[in-house]
């Protein structure tokens, strides 16, 4: 934690020094102060909060949709070879497609509304997540399942009382990482076709070389990412006390 803060401070100090000494023109690298004050102006004057809100909404809708579908399917894949056989090659194929390549398709199919963005994020994360979940479920020790079998548990009870709690810590970690990917894909979606959202703000600022605004947008994503990550880690520590 201390080290993390120190490295942060060091990077900002370096940035500030480079900007203060006018080593680079401000169009290249505005000072940290300029970025922060721009951030503030965007918030109070230009409804940046609305853009942040819509971006968060897109990310979480797609993320929850992905998770809600990937968790059951992943567990099914791990317990039934037939489900695994049917889905594995399909998933592998889609998993290797670069998300930006899918943007034109989602626009043709779903237009430029919310659904096309959510669909894009879903495609970028679902196929990865389902494999991660299947792996988590497969790594539940055989002994745990057999303890269930020899205490008279039915398959549903084994799933609920053994498999789920056993795989939960690593699954929460994987969900946290997937949520990070969602942000990457969101910016792709918003840069290509959007009239709102953080990505859109960044892209339209670039057009007028408002570098401080571009960096304010990036700053916003960074802060949100850091905050969510820390929040999930904190929950992880609280829920899984027994791991420490």
């Amino acid at each position, binding site marked *: 934690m201390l080290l993390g803060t120190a490295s942060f401070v060091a990077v900002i100090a370096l940035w500030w020094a480079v900007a203060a000494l006018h080593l680079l023109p401000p169009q290249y690298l505005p000072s940290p102060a300029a970025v922060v004050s721009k951030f503030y102006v965007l918030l109070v004057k230009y409804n940046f909060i609305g853009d942040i809100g819509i971006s968060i909404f897109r990310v979480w809708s797609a993320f929850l949709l992905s998770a809600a579908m990937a968790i059951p399917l992943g567990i099914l894949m791990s317990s039934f070879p037939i489900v695994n056989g049917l889905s594995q090659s399909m998933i592998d194929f889609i998993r290797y497609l670069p998300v930006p390549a899918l943007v034109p398709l989602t626009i043709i199919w779903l237009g430029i509304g919310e659904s096309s963005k959510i669909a894009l994020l879903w495609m970028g994360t679902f196929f990865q997540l389902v494999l991660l979940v299947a792996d988590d479920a497969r790594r539940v020790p055989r*002994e745990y399942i*057999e*303890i269930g*079998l*020899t*205490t008279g548990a*039915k398959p549903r009870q084994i799933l609920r009382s053994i498999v789920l709690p056993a795989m939960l810590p690593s699954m929460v970690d994987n969900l946290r990482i997937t949520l990070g990917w969602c942000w990457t894909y969101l910016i792709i979606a918003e840069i290509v076709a959007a009239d709102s959202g953080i990505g859109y703000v960044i892209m339209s600022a670039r057009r007028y070389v408002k570098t401080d605004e571009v960096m304010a947008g990036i700053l916003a994503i960074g802060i949100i990412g850091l905050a969510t990550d820390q929040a999930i880690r904190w929950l992880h520590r609280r829920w899984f006390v*027994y*791991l420490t």
Partner: protein
Amino acid sequence: MAHFLEIDRITKVFGTTSAGAAAINVIDGISMNIDEGEVVVFLGPSGCGKSTLMRMVGGLETPTTGRIVLEGREVKGPDRQKGMVFQSYSSFPWLKVLDNVRFGLRFRTDIDAAEKDRIARHYLRMVGLGDFEDYWVNRISGGMRQRVAIARTFAAGPDILLMDEPFGALDAQNREFLQLQLRDLCLKERKTVIFVTHDVEEAVFLADRIFVFSARPAKILEEIAIRDLLPAERDIKLRESETFFNLRNRILGLTRTQALRSEQMEVSQ
């Protein structure tokens, strides 16, 4: 006359399915009868098939040929009548000690929660962990974790207890203490136990009868009725007695050649 547990001409061949891997003969026609309340030890080199046979009694593996009959019914699959204690992953880290023991009763619908609590606490005290109900199992020692698993399995009230090298990962002092405690518990509860190990002293100390297994494919080399040679109640001093010492040496002689054969088999594969 029907026995409590009848193991009847069991064979097991691994790898005959689709994959086309060379078939491995694991168990080569083993038969034995076990009576109620006996502590039976399967002793043999690692990888010889003794665990596989025990898992078949538990219904966790199926024999290729032959059958296993427990209390007049053929074993078809796992259930609460056949309790298991494993060497590792023997208890659930997300449950505290008491909840782990209570897990043995979790899926019973014929008794209420208060009764489950009472039974779980009873067995937790029997293994000497009465003061540790509220501990996470990751915070207690490996030996205590195995006692939690033993308490859980006794609490579940199975007809037969199957133990797969449960003390294999413990240090010598801990192991001796747990062997003593387990022997006591088995006598008190009159449980039928099959205990798998490759440790000769452990086998002699715990067993009413030992079945010495050959290297793969497993056959019974010798059956030794320890109960005719040692008293039922055993203590630490017994280990220093001449009878114990002689028994141990004789069996060591038997197993040594098998262990060597088993090693060579591993290398040649």
